[in-house]
Structure formats: structure tokens, C-alpha cells
């Protein structure tokens, strides 16, 4: 049996009040992909930060190629041949592609100065070898998210690292781009690199990983070979119990049309969007990243201004010029980027919940705290929020609980239409199930829901009907009864077209 390229043993790390990792161990083998699996908050990100020199472990040892090492800085991790591709694209928008690839380890001239010519040439050949047609001279901000990921990957390859950490690399990628990524991972394996692959998606873990390690609550709870282990077994390790109903979709009574969108267009983002939404219905929006789904939703929510089209809610035409207008019209939006757009970190939970409803909780513009607490309690308890008090800063909550605060905030406004944009992205299985159950409950009460999701099982599991978008237009609208997932994927990718 081959020796591990990297071994972690007995690693512990605590933050004030939180034990992030306790006595965990991990081995990475050359030429193999090791999947790191765990719910959010299990300690995966902390581990990545320790491996890349951002955090220092309180206890434990790190061995690279049989040599005990310490990684005091990101630079030191570099030096040991460890590199990471992060969940989000952590790169530099204002710099060129070539510089993004080589920042910090650029080729030098004889005088120790940066050699721009060689840098460009090397970046170009690297990108070419990856099959990515990206001009090394353009600024990164000119690229779409998927291409940015490829640049991130090129950066990782340029470092010539032995150990590559991929932290949810497919989270923002489309199906086609994910396939391309798998090819690259194969190449890396053939090169003898050790890969740590972090993912929430079991299908991809089974597709590319050789080994797995499972974390739960900061501890290592299991490891083994993928080929020898069944999916349920891993899920049980992750959650400490078995999850039966991931998609508890119950059929609600479908009623009259609530929302009608006709010919909604925008100069650059989308065109000619028309659909209807009925009472008690969950309408899925599926498509590749960048297909324009979020932009359509934000237009309905008054954030982006459409250039043409009509929106009617319960027969009344609305033209939201701001989120405030949309809320008044009964349309609310749970954004994908929770931290930036969803919650106001720094304000306590109850103030987050009452923010859009202040007009109702106050008397003539004067705050009434008791009313706010009452409102917040009603909705957060209904969503089973886990918090020590309503005056707690919302920033101290986990991702899943923050999402509950956002949903509570909207329920408190008595909406007609709830738009959920990637509602379960980056939250743990437990909270995910709670969000799904709650969606079912909402439509049961006669609300209607639009759910934007890139997760095929989620879209298929939750929606009554599915709108597929491609390149800013609607490529098809499907009834979910007996729908073949292949149809959806092919429509989204433009392989198949359907007259809706």
C-alpha cells in the first residue's frame, strides 16, 4: 500500500466559545481523490484553513511526505506544495487572468523583477492545456463564474502542488462545466497528486472519489474506501441517524392564478419571460448558472429594472421600482447570497425579522419593541429557529438558522408570492429538510412559491411545474408529473428544445 502524501493526526482547534475540531485525523494518498464529507459546521472549512496556513491548530501534527511540518502562513503552505481551490472564486477581479494565475509566484527576470512576457506565455499555455479558451490578458471581471473557476484551477496547477484541496468546486458550475472539471481531476490523479475533495453531492462523490473521510461536529467519525461503502452508511455517519424524507413534497390544492408575468425583458440580462403561478403551487426554475434566473427574480422583486413586460399579482398590475414596492405588492425574495443580501449581520434577530414590517409594528413611525418581539417570536418559533435569544446578533447563527430568519422575516409581511433563490445552498442536511418541509407547509396554506435551484434532485423533488431557462430566455416549461430528468438537463444545456 502506498504511503500517504499528507497525514494529519490529533488536530484540535477551538475558537472562543466554539470547539471547531477535536482530535481529527486525515490521510491523503498520491494519485487518489479523498472526499471530505460532513454537514455544515462539521469543521471542514476549519480543516481547509489549517491545511492552507490561514489557521494554526491548537494541537496535533501535520506530516507532508514523511516530514513533520508547521504551516504558519499561507506562504508556508504554498512552499509545502499544498494549494486550494475555494468554494467561492477567491481571485482578483481587477487583475488580468495571467496575473491571477501567477500572483505571488510570478516568473522573474534576472534582476528579480516580474517577467510579464513569460508570465503571459506560461498562463496561456497552461490554460490551453486545460482546454479553456481564455485570453490571459483580459481582466478577470470580464469572465463568467465558471471561467473564473477554471482560472482558479489554473492557478492551483501553476503552483505545481502535490496536494490539491477542492472545496465544493462544483457548487457554482453548470452540468457541462462539472463534466469538464471531472476530466481535469482525472488528469491530476494521473499526475500522482493527492486530492482532497469536499462536496455535499453524493453523486459526484461516488463518481470521482476513491476514499472518504466523514466529519461530524468537529470530530472524525468514519473513513474508508468509497467502492466498499454504501451511500446510506455514509449519510448515517454524517447525520448520526438516517434521513428518510429528504423531499417531503405533499401535493397542495392548486388554486387560481396569483402571479402572471408577460414578456418581461431586460436590456442585457433576459428577454421575453412569460409564466403564470397558481395558488398552492411550487414553480421550479432550473437552468445553468448564468442563465438569468436570479436576474428575473430580482426584477420581480424590484431590484433590477426591466425594460418591458407586465407583472400582475392577483389581477392587479404592479411595476415594482424597489424591493419596498414589491413587498407591498406581496412579492418577497429569499436571496441566494444570504450573508450579503439576506440578513443584516450586526442587527439582532428580532430586528432582522421586523425590518420589512416596521410600518405595522410601530405606531406613527415610533418603534414598539414589544410588538417587534411578538412578531419575531411568532415566526421564528414556527420555523424552529435555534437561538439563545431574539436579541442575539444574527451573524452568530449558523447558515441554516440565518436562512430561517430570512424566511421568518418574509412570512411576517403576509406575502402572496415567495421567491426562494437556491434556498438550501450551503446549508446542512438537517436545515435543508426543514426548509423543504416548510415550503410544503406554505403552499398548503395557499401561498405560492417560486424556487430557483441548480440541484436537479431538489427541483424534481419539490416542484409542481418546472421552468427551464437558458441564456436569458425560457427554454421550456414542464409539468413535473413523470418528467425525465434527462429532458431538463438537455433543455438547460440547449441540446433539446421544447415548445412550451
Amino acid at each position, binding site marked *: 500500500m502506498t504511503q500517504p502524501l499528507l497525514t494529519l493526526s490529533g488536530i484540535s482547534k477551538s475558537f472562543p466559545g466554539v470547539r471547531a475540531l477535536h482530535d481529527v485525523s486525515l490521510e491523503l494518498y498520491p494519485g487518489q481523490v479523498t472526499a471530505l464529507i460532513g454537514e455544515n459546521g462539521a469543521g471542514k472549512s476549519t480543516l481547509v484553513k489549517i491545511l492552507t496556513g490561514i489557521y494554526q491548530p491548537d494541537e496535533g501534527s501535520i506530516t507532508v511526505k514523511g516530514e513533520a511540518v508547521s504551516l504558519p502562513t499561507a506562504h508556508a503552505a504554498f512552499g509545502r506544495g499544498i494549494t486550494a481551490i475555494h468554494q467561492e472564486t477567491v481571485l482578483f477581479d481587477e487583475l488580468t487572468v495571467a496575473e491571477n494565475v501567477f500572483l505571488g509566484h510570478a516568473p522573474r527576470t534576472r534582476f528579480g523583477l516580474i517577467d510579464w512576457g513569460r508570465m503571459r506565455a506560461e498562463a496561456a499555455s497552461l490554460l490551453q492545456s486545460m482546454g479553456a479558451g481564455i485570453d490571459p490578458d483580459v481582466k478577470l471581471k470580464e469572465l463568467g463564474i465558471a471561467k473564473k473557476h477554471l482560472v482558479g484551477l489554473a492557478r492551483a496547477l501553476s503552483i505545481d502542488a502535490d496536494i490539491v484541496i477542492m472545496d465544493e468546486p462544483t457548487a457554482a458550475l453548470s452540468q457541462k462545466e462539472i463534466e469538464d472539471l471531472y476530466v481535469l481531476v482525472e488528469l491530476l490523479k494521473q499526475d500522482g497528486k493527492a486530492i482532497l475533495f469536499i462536496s455535499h453531492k453524493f453523486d459526484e462523490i461516488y463518481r470521482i472519489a476513491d476514499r472518504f473521510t466523514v466529519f461530524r461536529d468537529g470530530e472524525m467519525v468514519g473513513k474508508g474506501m468509497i467502492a466498499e461503502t454504501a451511500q446510506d452508511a455514509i449519510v448515517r455517519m454524517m447525520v448520526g441517524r438516517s434521513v428518510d*424524507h429528504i423531499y*417531503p413534497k405533499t401535493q397542495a390544492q392548486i388554486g387560481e392564478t396569483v402571479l402572471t408575468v408577460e414578456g418581461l425583458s431586460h436590456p442585457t440580462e433576459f428577454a421575453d419571460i412569460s409564466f403564470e403561478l397558481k395558488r398552492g403551487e411550487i414553480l421550479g426554475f432550473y437552468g445553468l448558472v448564468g442563465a438569468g434566473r436570479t436576474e428575473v427574480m430580482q426584477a420581480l*422583486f424590484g*431590484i433590477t429594472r426591466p425594460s418591458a413586460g407586465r407583472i400582475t399579482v392577483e389581477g392587479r398590475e404592479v411595476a415594482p421600482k*424597489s*424591493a*419596498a414596492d*414589491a*413587498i407591498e405588492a406581496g412579492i418577497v*425574495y429569499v*436571496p441566494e447570497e444570504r450573508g*450579503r*443580501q*439576506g*440578513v*443584516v*449581520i*450586526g*442587527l439582532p434577530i*428580532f*430586528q*432582522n425579522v421586523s*425590518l*420589512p414590517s*416596521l*410600518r405595522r409594528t*410601530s405606531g406613527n*413611525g*415610533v*418603534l414598539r419593541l414589544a410588538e417587534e*418581539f411578538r412578531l419575531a*417570536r411568532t415566526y*421564528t*418559533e*414556527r*420555523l*424552529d*429557529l*435555534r*437561538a*439563545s*435569544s*431574539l*436579541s*442575539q446578533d444574527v451573524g452568530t447563527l449558523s447558515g441554516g438558522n440565518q436562512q430561517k430568519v430570512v424566511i421568518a*422575516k418574509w412570512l411576517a*409581511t403576509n406575502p402572496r408570492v415567495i421567491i426562494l433563490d437556491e434556498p438550501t445552498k450551503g446549508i446542512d442536511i*438537517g436545515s435543508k*429538510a*426543514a426548509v423543504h*418541509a*416548510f415550503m410544503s*407547509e406554505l403552499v398548503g396554506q395557499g401561498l405560492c412559491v417560486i424556487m430557483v435551484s441548480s440541484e436537479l434532485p431538489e427541483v424534481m423533488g419539490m416542484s409542481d411545474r418546472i421552468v427551464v431557462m437558458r441564456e436569458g430566455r425560457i427554454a421550456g416549461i414542464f409539468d413535473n408529473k413523470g418528467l425525465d430528468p434527462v429532458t431538463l438537463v438537455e433543455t438547460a444545456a440547449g441540446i433539446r428544445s421544447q415548445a412550451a
Partner: protein
Amino acid sequence: MTDTTNTPHRHIPDRLDNPVKSAVFSWETLLVLVGVAIFTANAFASPYFLNEWSLSDLTFNFTEKAVIALAMALLIISGEIDLSVAAIIALASTLMGMAVQWGVPTPGLVAIGIGVGLACGAFNGFLVTGLKLPSIVVTIGTMSLFRGLSYAILGDQAYGGYPADFSWLGQGYVWWVISFELVFFIAAAIVFWFVLHRTNFGRRIFAIGNNALAAQFSGVRVARIKFVLFCLTGLMSGIAAVMLTARLGSTRPSIAQGWELEVITMVVLGGVSILGGAGSILGVVLAALIMGLVTFGLGLLNVPGIVMSIFIGGLLISVIALPILYRMWKERRQ
């Protein structure tokens, strides 16, 4: 866990901290202690300090600046800044002076001063919220522009001849040694306290300062509120211009030179986060008092003004740095 309807819900308390306890360990408490210490030190240092007229004169050292600081605090809490406030005073004062030459009576002068302030504030607000420009550079620009216009109008001249009843606004006493300026400042502080801490508008300012994008996504009309805050800051600068002009009885383009930095120092010293999202009116009022006490106290000892400014600068950095250093020291000991 997945069942959200039938099981009894977990109860979440409103608060955990005892409000009294959190009030005791607040920034404002620190400021009160600093203020009392300086007051006591002043009383010991100078036999002339504990005298009703001295204490009354002391208030003139800060009231006009503090009136602007009230509005500036709201603006900074919302995540913006206005460096042009002193220049607004210059322009407002200049136009009031111009109006005097045309024989405009006192009510008209006050209206002009406040109106010019409001217009300047609206101009800043338009540039920042309408054209989406960063407020720090916009107001560096308008700072030159407003004062520059004042220079262009006045040149080497000065305006004087303000009516006698006008000067009461800057020099008059409402009762005993209590000046009009002080009364106005206290009234304005109460109004601002109420608006910031007790109204929806104030709550929205905090939300914007913590996360403007999320606030916008929660239905807060961010641009409109920021615009109002710029107007408010301009308005208060206009009022400060009225009081200062009335107190001086003359207008020159160099009036209120350098006040913007003093006003911002006051706000930051008052515990308002320069990054936005946190702060209180009580803190700003206490900081204004402290700055008045320090400058007047050192003045009584005939300490040169420039040494006072070192003291203020040091105070600004140290009151912010000391709690951080203390926290670091405590963490290291653990």
C-alpha cells in the same frame, strides 16, 4: 425536527443580558467617567473654572460643532460621511451676508442660512445616491467647491452689519447663563436621540449601516434615506452657520476652517463606528462635552491651542485603542 406544525415550539427569550448590566459596561459609561475626570481636573487646575459664567462660556466652544455632529452621527452610522460641513457653513454664511446687504431682515436671513445648508446637503446627497459616487471623495470635492464659491463671492471682502436681533441667535441668553445655542443644542439632541433610537427611520439607518444591500433587499429605501441624511447634515450645517454668523457678526470665506475634522472627531469619540452600523446620540453629546471641557480647561491654563489639538488627537486614538489593547491583553492572558 422536520415537523414544524404539531410539536410545541421551543421558546426563545427576548434577551439574555440584563439591560442594566450592559448599560454599565458601555462606551457611554467610559465617556461619562472621562468627562467627570476632566471636569474634576479642571476644577482643581484653575480657580476660575467653577463659575457659572465660565461654564456658560465653555458651551460656546462646542455647541455649533455639536449641532452638526448630531446629524453627522446619523450619516456615519448609515455608512457615509460628509467632509463638506464646514464649507457649507462658509457658503451659507456668505449668502446670508449678501442678503444683509440687500436689507433682508432676520427671519429672512435665518431662512437663507438654513435653505443654503439644505441645498448643499441635497447636492451632496444627489451626487452620492443619485450618481452612486463614494461620499468621501464627493465631499472632498464639494468641500473645495462650496468654500471656493464663498471665496469667489467675497474675495478679500467681509460681510458685516447683521441686524441686532439676528445676533441674539448666537450671543443671546434664554435664561440666566443658559445661551440660546445651548438650548437649541439640547433640544436638537433630544430630537435626534428620539429619531435615531426610537423610530423606524432610525432603525433603518442602523440596518443600512450594517448591510446596505441586505437592507435594500428587506424593503428599506436605502438611497432615499441616505439622501435625507445628507440633506439633514446640510440643514444642521446651515443652522450652525446661522448661529456662528450671529455670534461673530461678520462673514469671511475662512469662517469655520477645519471644523469638519473636529465634528468627525466628536462623532467618533462618541463611539460611533466610522465603518457604520453602530453608535448613539448620548455618546456624541458626551463627546461634545468632553471636547468642550478639554479645550476650555486647557485654555484656562493658557495652554497653546496647538497643544490642545495634540490632546484631542491623542484622546481620539487612545479612547479607541485602549479598549482594543485591553481586550488583546485579556485574550493573551487566557
